[in-house]
């Protein structure tokens, strides 16, 4: 298994290389000069030229790429043009904030939505099924920012149960930090369960229609036993794939939720960097996100072998 994991990480190197080259050149195709934005409406053309020179933006794009790439090989992701901080520590710090929201939300969503999907499939076309599918569709249709603002207004402003604005790190104040995370986690949780319920239901229905389930029923096994022993493990594969995609997607940034709830996470860092044309931060974020996708998918592949022994990881 270790060899498999190591091989997968090695095989990701070409992907990361392609991402680094693509992102570097694509972001420079987008109009907008970071030096001009830094200066705002102060400074003349000479001052702008001086700033561009100081930031290395006066050099050819190929030279800029060469410098950035060789620094990258030595672990130096560069320095933010906008705030002057080293990029990698900045990304890691912001990523850890996003993780505090994403991981609990995905875990809770999985724990609720997978059984709910199985239940809906087991009671296909019943009131339970219709209700669950309706809830899932409704949650899927509601935009995250609207849902977030609604929860914020109800539980923060009107009921006053939870803080409305701000962020406290759990390392500074564990209980206070938890309180600040409740609303963003619940928002994300509600938004994600819709997708997972639908996938879980669909894959369970597919398995329930197979011959070996009919055979199990003919043997007189209980419905509970059939669902747990014979259906769940086989039906969970597609949901697991979806969970990998969801997790990768969310870990790469939940900018809307982070903006509404003033959470200094990776998504907000990247959005701010794009508006400011902060090239080193954008490049660093994209590379980091590509790596996270590789890592999450690797974990999912390793988990496959647990749910389906036919999947060999050696």
């Amino acid at each position: 298994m270790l060899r498999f994991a190591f091989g997968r990480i090695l095989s990701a190197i070409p992907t990361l290389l392609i991402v680094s080259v693509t992102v570097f050149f694509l972001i420079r195709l987008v109009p907008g000069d970071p030096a001009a934005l830094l200066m705002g409406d102060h400074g003349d053309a000479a001052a702008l030229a001086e700033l561009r020179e100081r930031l290395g933006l006066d050099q050819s794009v190929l030279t800029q790429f060469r410098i950035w790439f060789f620094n990258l090989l030595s672990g130096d992701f560069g320095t933010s043009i906008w705030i002057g901080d080293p990029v990698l520590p900045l990304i890691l710090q912001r990523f850890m904030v996003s993780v505090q929201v994403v991981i609990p939300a995905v875990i809770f969503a999985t724990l609720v939505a997978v059984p709910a999907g199985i239940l809906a499939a087991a009671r296909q076309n019943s009131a339970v099924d219709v209700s669950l599918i309706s809830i899932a569709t409704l949650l899927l249709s509601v935009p995250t920012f609207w849902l977030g603002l609604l929860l914020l207004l109800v539980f923060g402003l009107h009921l006053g149960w939870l803080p409305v604005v701000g962020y406290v790190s759990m390392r500074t104040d564990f209980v206070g930090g938890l309180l600040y995370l409740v609303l963003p986690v619940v928002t994300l949780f509600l938004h994600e369960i819709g997708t997972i319920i639908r996938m879980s239901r669909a894959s369970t229905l597919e398995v329930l229609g197979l011959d070996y389930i009919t055979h199990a029923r003919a043997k007189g096994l209980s419905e509970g036993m059939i669902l747990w022993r014979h259906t769940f493990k086989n039906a969970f594969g597609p949901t697991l794939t979806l969970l990998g995609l969801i997790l990768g997607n969310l870990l790469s940034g939940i900018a809307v939720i982070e903006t509404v709830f003033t959470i200094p996470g990776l998504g907000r860092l990247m959005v701010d960097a794009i508006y400011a044309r902060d090239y080193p931060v954008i490049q660093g974020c994209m590379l980091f996100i590509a790596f996270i996708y590789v890592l999450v998918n690797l974990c999912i592949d390793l988990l496959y072998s647990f749910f389906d022994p036919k999947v060999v990881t050696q």
Partner: protein
Amino acid sequence: MKHLLLTTVATLALAGAAQAQSTLNVSLNADLRTNDPGVNRDGNSDGLLMHILEGLVGARNDMSIAPMLAEKVDVSDDFKTFTFVLRDGLKFHNGASVTSAEFLWSWNRYMDPATQWSCRADFDGSRVVEVTSVETPDPKTVVMTIAEPSPVFLALLARPECGQTAILHPDSVDDSGKYQFPIGTGPFKWQEWRKGEYVQLEAFADYVSPSNEGTADGLVGNKDPLVGFLRYMVVPDGATVIAGIRSGAIHFGSIAAEQIDEFRDIPTLQLLNVPTGGHNILYFQTRNTPLDNVEIRRAIAEAIDLDQLVAAASNGTGTPNMSLIPVGSSWYSDIQAQRPAYDPESAKARLAAAGYKGEPITIKANRRGNVPSYPAAIVAQAMLQAVGINAQIEVLDFAIQTDQRREGLGQISSVSVTPRLDPSFTYTFFIGNKDDDPSRMWEDPRAIELMDRSYVETDPDKRQQIFDELHLLMMEEVPSVFIYNMVYNWLAPKSLTGMPVWESYPRLWNVALD
């Protein structure tokens, strides 16, 4: 044991409550870029640092310049030697006394290219003035000498975007010369910066404020810290700012003009509409066709009903002003109040005389919430179309709009420009040869000559004449349409007392929470 525990809990609760009561929470739309004055700065950084740092001189409400750390400023007859005498009893936040030696240390640091102070070129002879010497004959006196007479030297020193050329204590940098955090003389001292979350300042108990009869005046005047702590919270989303203010988590925040109607009559909240010296402009690229034709520019000016446009774009809070000098400035004269009359028929006649055949004229705008770029463009478009101009709107990302304006591209750009302390600085932003700097709007040699004169004329009356001449020339040449001075809309609970704004900055001394 149980008693001890209860006592501890009660004490902690009381301490927490006391601190919470005296902490004033302000929202910032983005994190600080820096805590180093005038280095990689932006408006948020300038506005926060002015609570911590002070220079020899500062700006009043009307943007004139007055002593700040200096008790008095003597200017030699030839306007080349400026002698500053420091006030008595001044202390840094670390308890050290303020002397002229710290000013000299700060000045040398600012002028060291390694510091990357954004205003260095204004003092080294490459742009505005050349400081030839800085002397400190005694601990209370600083003597600065410049090569040529300059009426704007004090204003150059006082600019918020230059960190007010503040006196820093040398311990603001570590032994290796790396900047740590600002140790200044202002009413609040630096406490904590959690990047992306908040910056917290603490009241400086030993602050010696100028009395000014208890009244704040720009960045000078009375500056007593009346709350224990200031917490600048990074809240990028406007809806969250409002929710925060309604819930009491935020005490002071800026809201967009279109949101103000909602808050006009709420008994627990106060709405402040504060005009600033910044300008909202329909910025013309005067070399590009058809705006290279002065008759077309005049037609545009006459086609725009400025009162109506300002009322719509500012939601009733703005005052029309076609002058480059803000309405509240000490330089704003009756002549500055002149503007072209709204005259659609004359505009049509001018268009016909200029041979205008319906070529598209594009107004570039951005959708940032804190400036009226887009609403101003929409209203202007309707007014221009009403006289037969084929006006189009192109909405751009702010970065692209900025880039295009700097490169002299396009035709009209609906933009906002931040305030400058002296009219000469504002004119410099707009006037100049486009071959040297394509971002300049107006390259009329007469305007360039007048602007250059404004930098050397030391007689205030003659400077006023220069500005008035410039304004009259501008009304004739219409290099752009200046709409109104920027208005910022702020929301606070009624329990907040004092005037918490100066220009576009929260100004939180002499402000209390009842």
